[in-house]
């Protein structure tokens, strides 16, 4: 074996394992509110906005409050520390990133899943009424 090959192999193995280790650490996991509550860590929760419950921007604390139902049927208040994102009302689902504190999800990052407003059948359903 040539020394170059050995050094090369060692370097590749080191690089790959470091990369994969760091990659694994940088990943989160999508969870429900209950799991988010028990872990207390920064997590991603997928859910749907509950329009019937109170929502709006709090001009005092500068947070956008709304209620979201996760995929397991749990509903929690979300306190999002930025203004309401674009396309919010139209979203098919939301991904909220943050920590649970005292039953409230404190979020600083939100992804609005808006499938290029795909399949908006609501107008047509209205026609029938």
């Amino acid at each position, binding site marked *: 074996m040539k020394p170059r090959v050995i050094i090369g192999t060692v370097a590749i193995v080191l690089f790959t394992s470091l990369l994969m280790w760091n990659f694994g650490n940088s990943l*989160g*996991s*999508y969870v429900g509110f209950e799991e988010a509550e028990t872990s207390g860590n920064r997590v991603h929760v*997928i859910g749907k906005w509950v329009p019937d419950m109170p929502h709006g921007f709090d001009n005092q*604390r500068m947070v956008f409050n709304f209620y979201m139902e996760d995929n397991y049927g749990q509903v929690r208040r979300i306190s999002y520390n930025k*203004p309401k994102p674009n396309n919010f009302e*139209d979203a098919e689902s939301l991904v909220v990133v943050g920590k649970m504190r005292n039953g409230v999800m404190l979020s600083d990052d939100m992804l609005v899943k808006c499938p290029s407003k795909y399949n908006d059948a609501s107008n*047509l359903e209205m026609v029938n009424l």
Partner: protein
Amino acid sequence: MIGTIGSFSVIIAFLASLGAFVFYFLAAQKENKSFERTAHLLFGFHGAMMFLGSALLVYLLLTNQFQYFYVYNYTSSDLSNVYLWAAFYSGQEGSFMLWILCSFLVGMGLIRWTSDTYRAPVMFFMTMTHVFLISMIIGVTVFGVHIGASPFRLTSAEFAHLPVFINNPSFIPAEGSGLNDLLRSPWIIIHPPIIFLGFAMMAIPFAYALASLWKRKYHEWIYPALPWTLGANLCLLVAIFLGGYWAYETLSFGGYWAWDPVENASLVPWILGTAGIHTMLIQKRSKIAHKASIIFAILAYVTIVYQTFLTRSGVLGDSSVHSFVDLGLYNQLLLFIMAVSLSGLLLYLLRMRELPSPENETPMFSREFFMFSGAMTLLLVSLVIILGTSAPIIGRLFVANPTPPQPQFYNDWTLPFAIAIAFLTVLTQYLWWNKYKDTETFAGVLITPTISASIITVALIVVSGVINIIYMVYLFAAVFTIIGNGMVMARLIKLTPKMIGGSVTHIGFGVLLIGFLGAAYDTPLLDRSTINYNAAVERGEIFDEDGFRVYQTMDVMKLDMNVPKRINDRYNVTFTNATITHENRPGEQQYRIEFEDLRTGRTFAVHPVVYPMIANSSAGNMSWTVDPEVRMGWLRDIYVYVSGSSLVEKENNRIENQTTFQAVADILMNGYEESLRNSEINNLVRLRPGSTRQLGQYNIRFDRFINMTESELPENAVVGVRARIEIINLQTRHAEVHEPVYAILFEDGVNTIYSPPLSIESFGFDVMFETIDTRTDEAHFRLIGIEEQVEDEWIIVAIERKPLVSVVWLGTFLLMFGFSIAIYRRWGDERKAYKRARHYKDEQEIADKAENQNS
């Protein structure tokens, strides 16, 4: 009818591309000219059919034929023709068509310009991509398997389950659901066509590489492939720039880059294309790069298809802002990527032993070695990005339901590679243009750039206050790249100006690196009290009404009209005006925020915009979006958007109260002024003792009730109280205390209320103690005349400082310029070589003929 013709034209185009595919194969295999001519005809015919299909789709869009689902779903009758045209590629089906059209035009260019040796096999692989791409939009069912999603399918078929279509199958919706307002921007006209042109052109090096393997001509292919790869890279670069600028300037994504999978989808092929360009350049001089050139050419296209798969198959689902919804193309896309990568892999393995390789080891100290190392580093960078983007798939090895990696992952891993590449560009450029007899002389030459770069870096660190040690190394690498490549360029420009493409590009890279550093120092600009509040939140000293600790800091501020706030101890900002302009769409609002730079004394104003998203709104539920305003500067941008305002709230109330069945756009257009006249500006303040309320620029504090003594009571009064109130003008800080009277009189057998207006001359309005609500213990005060001066107007505004964004744009322009020079040069070389080969071949043929005649 038109739809049927359209569907058929796509189906015929598909069959023609299959025919061309077969004939190109035969032509390449048997080297038969008549097969090749047939294949060209079929290829041209399939392109004509695709143009026909696209023209019909555009016609349907322009004429608002909502019985077609694609038209219904992406347009509405209020759209201008420009956006109706853009709607052609706003959806997934149409964007495949655009891709195919771009690729077809590029293919015609290839037929025209490719040499005889490679033409048939190159076109064979190009046509292969067409077969797959057209299959995505063909929309037919064969043996129970549904293939592709046709852009010509009917709305009634798409919504067959809805009652309206069950009752009346020939129902045609009167209005479409409209183009998303975020896409109604001039950028949509130009951004997608360029990106698909880039995608189409990146197929060319792929096709050339596979053709070279097939025909065992491993060397010559790089001459024609090089300018095409450069062209593909230039397109991707321009598209990435436009996308970043669009996201930053008008979409309020907060920055120009977010490591979103769709962004990565064009970045990774660009990086691999760049690596390929470098190995092709090495290949001209040494045999170490033949294999690598082929691999990079294949990989660049494979990653384009792979990222297309990721973004369009629904795999990414929740991890990207703009991933498409699955149209049922998962299997087809999977097949496409398998075909592209397997054809590459198999051909490569088949020919691997024959491929040229260097006779002896390349010395460490050589331009080939350095350049090759640079290309390999680029490969590593792209592997990291691919890994991150593939998190929804690969991440399952680590966690269930993996999320995308944090941006930190990408930043951490690309930074050291960027540093390495920066150094390698300088070393390679010096060695490329000059020969040095040993390491010492070479090191000697590098002394000047190293020392000057060190001095400049130290100066920059002192001025900018960078304290992170890794950033310091990074900064040095960037400055070193600019200076090193700059010195090479300065020498070249005198000798052969058309060869400076490489050095200009590398300088652009260095400038980009400096610009990227700015993103680490983005900061919200806030006033002193908000900054103090945020510090208290961090220390855990703030609690909410229920006694829970508050964790969230505030990155936005409230500005009252004409009340200035000092932000970051640097600027005085004042919100001075809000108007409904209707400029680009009904109901669009424009705000005016004035800045005064306390350091330089200069003033400027920004005009952020807020507008209703009509396509997504109904009268009861308005959806608003923001269009930020960027004040560009060489060193820093000031980025401002209004995220909420009293004007928006007023409009929401007005629209909610409309009982008519007007379209939202009409409500927005009409009646705002009228409703403003009719609406009573609220001059009523309800206060409990001890509480305070703000009305406009005044603070009204209700201290307490004061019972009136007998002597004080007005005539005939049964009972009477005075209210002690303090009114403060927040702007002038002038305060006054007053005690308006409320009494009940018994006159002529009836109770009447006595509450005389008390005139406050210095403020210019009257106070009236109107009534007492005994249930809530609230006193009602009416401030008559305050309407004229109190426009209770406010905005919630986000102001951010984003350093060095202009430097990023500058770096991008330098890259574009460098690529363009390189394309010009390489294309010229290739044309000359082509003509020489032609000429040589003609002479050969004449000689052959002469020989035949002689014998």
